């Protein structure tokens, strides 16, 4: 199926991905080609097929609730672009913030 420029704008917004106009046009074209290939899946009647949501046989079980060492705070903060008062610092979430 062919994507429109509006589709691409919408996906890029959902993905939090800033794209140039040139990139948007390229991805519009390439995604349309890839999705056309993927449309082959519609040939198959899967009404009676269960979706495969995991590979391994689920063996979920509870583990003992015991405290174990966490990663040192300094190590984790050390990789961050901006920190303050032992926390990650980010720009204002809403316009007009401090």
């Amino acid at each position, binding site marked *: 199926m062919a*994507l429109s420029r509006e*589709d*691409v704008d*919408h*996906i*890029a917004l*959902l*993905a*939090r*991905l*800033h*794209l140039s106009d040139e*990139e948007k046009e390229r*991805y519009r074209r*390439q*995604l349309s*080609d*890839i*999705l056309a*290939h*993927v*449309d*082959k*899946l*519609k040939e*198959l009647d*899967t009404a009676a*097929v*269960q*979706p*495969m*949501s*995991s*590979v*391994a046989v689920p*063996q*979920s079980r509870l*583990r003992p609730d015991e405290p174990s060492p966490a*990663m*040192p705070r300094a*190590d*984790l903060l*050390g*990789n*961050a*672009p*901006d920190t303050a008062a032992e926390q*990650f610092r*980010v*720009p*204002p*979430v*809403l*316009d007009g*913030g401090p």
Partner: protein
Amino acid sequence: MSELHSLSVSQILNGLAAGDFSSRELAQAYLKRIAALNPRLNAYLYVDAAGALAAAEAADRQRAGAKDPAGLPPLLGLPIAVKDVLAVAGMPATCGSRILEGFVPSYNATSVQRLLDAGVVILGKTNTDEFAMGSSTENSAYGITRNPWDEERVPGGSSGGSAAAVAAGLAPAALGTDTGGSVRQPAAFCGLSGLKTSYGRVSRYGLVAFGSSLDTVGVLAHSAQDAALVLNAMAGYDPRDATTLEQPAPNIHLNGNASVKGLRIGVPREYFIEGLQPEVEAAVRAAIAQFEQLGAQVQEVSLPHTAYALPVYYIIAPAEASANLARFDGVRYGLRIEQDNLIEMFSRTRGQGFGPEVKRRVMIGTYALSAGYYDAYYGQAQKVRTLIRDDFARVFEQVDLIAAPATPGSAFPIGAHAEDPLQMYLEDVFTLPANLAGVPGLSIPAGFDSTGLPLGLQLLGPYFSEERLLAAAHAYQQASDHHTRRPQL
């Protein structure tokens, strides 16, 4: 004794035990060769020369001080390379991406930690397609890696740095990861034995996630025997990865008497299709004939949904990637493009930090998961994935292993698929199905094309059949010498 850099893992372990050379001499030999050849090949993104020498010296001391050599760690003093999507404490982990530039994890991936516990010496981190998305290592933000057999060609990908390093004698073995063929395809292109493990066999803790229902940690080495030694040390249940199974770790030791007598090998007709390079088909058929001569029973089988693996994969893998890569947002690590508000900061950071292929897959995945399209794309892909898994289950009731080509052709020229992502995706048609089904696979050298490029045979087995796969490959490698050839550099 041949030069140190051309020894196999088992030769190295024997030589160290016999005192023929020290771990330090070995590490020095590899570091010297890396210094000479890596500027040409760009197999390594990061080399830890000081750390490797220190670890090698510690290994030598441990060996010298051991009262009982049998009690020493099994891989003591063995140098190894690690794909740059796995965390090694204190070494950068870029995943081949600008968005992780400067990120230095403070912990080891479980696979890495277990190898360190087994005594390995880590030489450095190897190049990869960005976040392991690609089949050529051309998608790395840190330059392409060249194929040691022909430097104008790609080494395959995404574990292309690991493959080039082992093929060129810059490491005797390397860790790779395989989400859709990223160990087996570069192994085929570089003349190596590349093991993709069963889903749940090796912990992914400390592996930067790409497609969580597909990602596996594997090994690239010269022989099945070498791959088994590395697998033994790193496989097994890990409480930090809930998808690992509580099975005993494998203890696979391949010696002189491996046999394939009576082994039932299936040859899937859907893998011999238009577009398969005739020389690949000839090499694969010859290898299968050799298995038959060695006593295997060969029969044709059918995996009828093979043609659907590519479209299924290119929905499921990007969908999972788009979710996994949401964590790269400029807050906790790596690149940040400063902006006045949070959403703009996310978008600009990701727009500048991700390369073209990663953006493409994030876009596909986001679309496939978005409201109104989820059932048509992701839901349908998950159902067809069931059909692909059931194909394998049915065939493995008839045969013990599957033998097929690993790739449609030999290594392609650098830049060949630069403008056409779909053509690049088609390079993986023979490797994707194993990831979708979760079964293990192994690519081994099966010959060379007329220009001297390696060709790969792929063996696939039922879930958790690594020992059977490796033993069959070992029997073949005892009767053939393709895996002993090395490129001229």
